[in-house]
Each structure stands twice: as structure tokens, then as C-alpha cells.
């Protein structure tokens, strides 16, 4: 194999591949990034830790001689980073488990693994279950994945659920205390509903797949794997087994008790009201009164805080406690200038944040023992 390639796009692709490759594995091949070069097909960069697999075709560079190499991803990244700076034409020569990177003053010979052991290249499986703008999908992931469960147990909740229907794609995450749901219409979804759960690691990588925000992303599910194809990149991941609890039931129906405020104002008030809370007493009381929301907190040994926020609220007074972090998590992923509607029903029922763009966030309150 011999190829000449500008460093920037190669480093970007190898960097992404190194995020997929296993950081430490008894099977060394899983720590490797593969470079496949063919005069007919161009240059492909691949990696797989078996759970997640990625393949990218470079749209730059010239293949002089066909071939395949597999070398440890982190080694190749550090070499490219060191010598590649601004270089338009880097020559890589290799065969099998060896890759040489030569510049006028540096010569590197990286030892790798037998490419025969590589995970076979994948192809996008047939028709997409959803096709949508990449920027939309990235935003749906950003606005949901933070709500996944972190603590042990309830393994399904460690992932994000994708629900495909003929008309829309719905992405949901919940840790059992709060729930984030984003919905976007799609043109040609599957005739029958399809629900799958995807881990957060592959989703974080999906967000890095395209720099072009106008690109379209295709999503498909096949043989217990989910596939994302955008431009010249294809990422697939094994699905998480299990099912979500019946979450639609816990999303409150529209309630008259609520108000609309700018996300930024609400977040500022919450942040201020939570300054004097502690980890054990992480609770802010929200007092809904006529045209006024009073946010207060109290922690023994630390102090008390009270913040007043003028809001157009005209319903019967309501008072309930929330973990401020849960509300702030959602406000952080909303446009600061968005008009957010905050609805409640009772002191022991979940509160709901919506921004009128298909995003719904539900938080279970904190019961304050008095």
C-alpha cells in the first residue's frame, strides 16, 4: 500500500476511529485502526470494538498502490498529530501489520496487527428507517442523552430509545426521575413501529460524524444493530437489550397550571436559588403565585435563598420542590431565548417543560418532609 494524503482530513478520520477502537483489549486488533486503500475505491479508515464499528471514506488523497494495514489507533493519532501540522502531502507506505510514515526529517515505522483479523467492512443495510437533517438528529441526541441512567441496574435506561414510525422519529431518555423526549417528522419511516435502545457511547460518536450541518443522515436497524450513514461515514452499534417502562403514561397531559418564560431567565433564577443547597439537600421549592414564581431553598448549616421571578401565572397557587439540577439540565440544552412553558399539576406529580418544537422534558418532584 502506498498513498499520498493531506494530513488534516486523515487525522480527523483516524481521530474519530480511535474513539471507536478499544482502548485496551486482549484482542489487539480491536485497538487498531485500519487503512484500506484501493485505486478504484479511494482511501477508507475503519475501526471496531465489536460493539461499535465505524468506516469513513476520505474525499482527498491519492492511492498509488492498493493495500490494507492495521495499526494501533492511538499510536497513529499521535504520530499524525506530531508531524502532520499543515502538511498537504503525507506519504504512507505499508503492508500488513506495518505502516511507515515518512517526512523529510522523521521516519516512523508503526507495528500493527494482521489485517486478516480485521472486522469485515460493513455496508448500510437496505432502506433507511428515518432520513433527516444531520443537525436535527444531533440536536435530538444532545437534548436527550444527558437524561440516561448512570447508576447500576435498570440497564435499558442506560441507553436512549429510538422509536421509528411511518411519520416521525422519537428519541427518548430517562433515568427514572426525569425524562427527555424529542420528536421530529420524517418522510418515509417504516410501516410498523420500530423501537430500539442505543448506548450513549455510539451516540456521542454520531454527533461527531459530520461537520456540514446541512447534510442528511440516514438511520437503519438490521440484525440487532443500528446504522447511521452521513456523507462518507457509516457508524453502526450493537443495540441494548430490554425495554423502556411505559413512559408515555408519566408525561403529564397539558395542564392549565403553568406559565411561559425565556429559558435563560428561568435558568438564572434556578441557579441563584440553588446556590445555598447541599448535595444531601438538593432541593429548591417553587411557589407558584399570582404572576410571581418564588424559588427558595434552605439547607441547615449553609443558609437560605429566595429568588422572585415575575411570570404570567394566573391559576390557583401551587407549591412543589425540585432537584434544581434536573431542571437546569434541560434548560441548558434549550435555546436561551426560547419561550419555555413550565407546567405543574400537584406537589407529587411530575412537572413538564416544553418549548413548542417537539421537545418535552418531564421531572418528578422532590417531596420535602417538613
Amino acid at each position, binding site marked *: 500500500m502506498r498513498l499520498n494524503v493531506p494530513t488534516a482530513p486523515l487525522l480527523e478520520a483516524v481521530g474519530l476511529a480511535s474513539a471507536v477502537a478499544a482502548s485496551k483489549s486482549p484482542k489487539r486488533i480491536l485497538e487498531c485502526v485500519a487503512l484500506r486503500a484501493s485505486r478504484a475505491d479511494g482511501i477508507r479508515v475503519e475501526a471496531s470494538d465489536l460493539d461499535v464499528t465505524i468506516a469513513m471514506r476520505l474525499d482527498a488523497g491519492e492511492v498509488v498502490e492498493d493495500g490494507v494495514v492495521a495499526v494501533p489507533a492511538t499510536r497513529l493519532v499521535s504520530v499524525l498529530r506530531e508531524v502532520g501540522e499543515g502538511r498537504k502531502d503525507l506519504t504512507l507506505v505499508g503492508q500488513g501489520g506495518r505502516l511507515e510514515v515518512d517526512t523529510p526529517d522523521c521516519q516512523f515505522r508503526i507495528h500493527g496487527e494482521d489485517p486478516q483479523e480485521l472486522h469485515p467492512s460493513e455496508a448500510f443495510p437496505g432502506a433507511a428507517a428515518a432520513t433527516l437533517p444531520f443537525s436535527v438528529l444531533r440536536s435530538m441526541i444532545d437534548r436527550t442523552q444527558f437524561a440516561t441512567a448512570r447508576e447500576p441496574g435498570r440497564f435499558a435506561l442506560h441507553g436512549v430509545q429510538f422509536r421509528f414510525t411511518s411519520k416521525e422519529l422519537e428519541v427518548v431518555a*430517562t433515568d*427514572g*426521575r*426525569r*425524562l427527555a423526549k424529542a420528536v421530529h417528522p420524517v418522510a418515509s419511516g417504516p410501516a410498523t413501529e420500530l423501537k430500539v435502545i442505543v448506548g450513549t457511547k455510539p451516540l456521542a460518536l454520531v454527533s461527531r460524524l459530520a461537520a456540514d450541518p446541512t447534510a442528511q443522515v440516514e438511520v437503519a436497524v438490521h440484525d440487532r444493530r443500528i446504522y447511521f450513514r452521513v456523507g462518507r461515514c457509516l457508524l453502526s452499534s450493537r443495540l441494548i437489550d430490554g425495554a423502556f*417502562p*411505559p*413512559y408515555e403514561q*408519566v408525561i403529564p397531559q397539558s395542564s392549565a397550571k403553568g406559565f411561559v418564560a425565556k429559558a435563560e431567565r428561568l435558568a438564572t433564577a434556578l441557579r441563584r436559588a440553588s446556590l445555598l443547597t447541599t448535595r*444531601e*439537600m*438538593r*432541593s429548591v421549592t417553587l411557589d407558584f403565585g399570582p404572576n410571581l414564581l418564588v424559588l427558595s431553598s434552605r439547607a441547615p448549616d449553609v443558609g437560605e435563598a429566595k429568588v422572585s421571578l415575575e411570570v404570567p401565572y394566573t391559576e390557583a397557587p401551587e407549591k412543589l*420542590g425540585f*432537584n434544581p439540577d434536573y431542571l437546569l439540565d434541560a434548560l441548558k440544552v434549550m435555546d436561551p431565548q426560547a419561550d419555555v412553558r413550565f407546567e405543574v399539576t400537584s406537589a*407529587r406529580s*411530575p412537572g413538564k417543560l416544553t418549548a413548542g418544537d417537539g421537545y418535552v422534558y*418531564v421531572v*418528578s*418532584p*422532590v*417531596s*420535602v*418532609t417538613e
Partner: protein
Amino acid sequence: MASPRTILHVDMDAFFASVEQRDDPALRGQPVLVGFAGRRGVVAAASYEARRFGCRSAMPMSVALRRCPRAVVVPPRHAHYAAVSDRVLEILETATPLVEPLSIDEAFLDVTGTERLHGPPAALGERLRARIRDELALTASVGVAPNKFLAKLASDLRKPDALVEVTPETVDAILLPLPVERLWGVGPKTAERMHALGLATVADVRARGLERLTASLGSLGEHVHALAWGRDDRPVVPESEAKSIGHEETFLHDLEDPDDVRSVLLAQTEAVARRVRRAGVLARAVSVKIRFGDFETVTRAGPLAAPTDATDELWHAARGAFDRWADTGFRPVRLVGLSATRFLSGPVQLELFEDPDHARRRRLDAAVDALQRRFGSDAIRRRGAAAAREPHPPVPDA
């Protein structure tokens, strides 16, 4: 110096026996012994008619029957007594939330500062006694005093069915002639030591002075000196603020079968769980206490996956802790106790999705609690809780 307090001690009269006499008219006016009639049986409670013959609780049943051969022996119904006890506590809680149940049949109330609301404390005590009599057809004795020690002493002075108030003016007349055994914390062993030092009555303790008492008895000297002057600063701690809620039982004979211990532990778990629910708290752990005939004591902790007040979840943790101990070397047990501990305080994050099993257990507990409150029946018990107790009855709290 702490500000003056007003403490009530409410003590049900011959509680188990009175409940049996109330429920069965044929027993009224008869000497009644609650307990098992077997060879190793012990008296859990004696009616006042039986006490006239010298029968006392904690006495072997065979001795009691020798003293009063015509006594009627009634097997105990602990769950039923617990349910009646709940009703008593409900009445007491109408006076103040500061109610500290001491055992199934007695409680302390801190009614300091309630005079404008309830009138003089003695009148309040009488009203509570009247409600217990009218609503539950049972009698109670009440002590009114500035602290727990004197209130408990007072309730006992003219038992049954009486109220005694100890005031600063009357305290000496009551206290000075009492034997040292009546001081809180002075058991048979300590009493023996005190007798050897020439301390027989409270008056003797006072005359000895603090310095000489501490010189001969150490920190205990300080303790008995304060009590001898009628001083006791222990606060009334309602169960909702308690650090733990527990039950323990001492047996007349060591229990040699682990299954017998388990069944006692299960009955204790049921009672503790109910008190946890009444107190409106959630436990994060249980602790099992085991004592052997030689007084060596071990405790074993059973952590809970999530804070809970559900009987089944507390039982799972208690049983796990006991089994881990028993599997590594069981020895005959003299005392077993269970407490729920590490209560959750502060805000509780509610779940969006209730664990269906947890929700089911909570509904079961609520239903059992309601049934036991209404019917006070032993019929609704967990399987195994009441079994295997007959040959090894516990010694009741004296």
C-alpha cells in the same frame, strides 16, 4: 438550666389481660393470665384479679398457676395488642406530636407549653384517660411531672386507673423513701453494688453527696445523684425523629433452632415496619441484634437497596443479615432484636415510574395495617410469624 417542662407518662393497666377481658365478657372479673400454658410457658400479663394472688408478668406459668389455680390462661395475640396500641397512640397524638412510645403499652408525651390550648396538664391527662376509657374500653394510669423519670414514677404510684401529678412541692415526699432499685438505670447488679455501699433508699443517695458517689460509682454516681434530686434531662423523642425504631425480646430459655429465631425476627419485623410507617420515615438499613446465654452480643447490619418502609423489604434485609450470621456458625440465642435504622431525612426524590413490585408491597402493607387497625386480628399475619413460639415464649418487658 433547661426551662421547665411538662411530661406525661401514660401506662396502660395490665394491658394484654385488659384487652382480653374487654374482648371476652366471660373473662371479666376473673383472674386472667396471658401466656402459653406449656411446661416452659411464662406469664406475659396478669389481670389485677390474678395479681391479688401474687401472679406477676415474667413469672413462669407453672408458678402463677400454683398461686392461682383457677386463673384462666389465654394465649397472647401480639398483633392484636399492637393494633390496640396504635389506637391508644392516636388518642395521645391529639394532645401533642411529641409522643414517644416506650413499649407497646406506655408512652411519654411532652406537653410543655400546651396549657393555653389544652388547660392544666393534669386536666389534659384526665381527658386522655377518659377518651381511652370511652373509645377503647380500657384504663390507663398517667403520671404528670417535670421530666420523664418522675412522670414514669408517678404513673406507677396509684395504679390502676389513676392520675398522679408530681410537683416541686411533692417530689421529695415521693422520692426520698423509694428504694434505689426504682432509679432509672439501676438494675439488680447495680443495686447490689449500691447496697454494699450502704445505699438503700433515694434519701441515702442524696445524703451521700455527688463527690463521694462519683468516687465509688464513677459516672453512674453522677447519674443516680441527678435522679435522686429528681433531675432528668432526657428529651421526649417522637418516632419520626428517632435514630432507629426497634423491638427486642429476651427468652427464658435459649432458642436452639434457627427457625424459631427466624419466626421471632419476622414478628418483630412486622411490628417494626408498622411503627416505621406510622412515623412516616424510610429506613436505609436494618440491624439484627443477637445475644447468647453468656451475654455476649453480636449485631449484624442488613443494608436496603432503596430506602423503604415496606415489611417485605425490611424482612428480606433482616433475614439476609441473620442468615449470613447463622450460616457461619449458629449458637443458641437468648435475645434477638431488630431495628430499622439510618432513616432518610431531607428531601426525597420521587420516582417517575414506580417499581411495580414495590408498589404492590406498599399496597399489601397498607391493607394489612388497615385490617389490623380495624379488627386487630392475628388472622392476618405473614406465614411463619406466629408459628414456633409456643415452646419458647419470650419474657415480656416487665
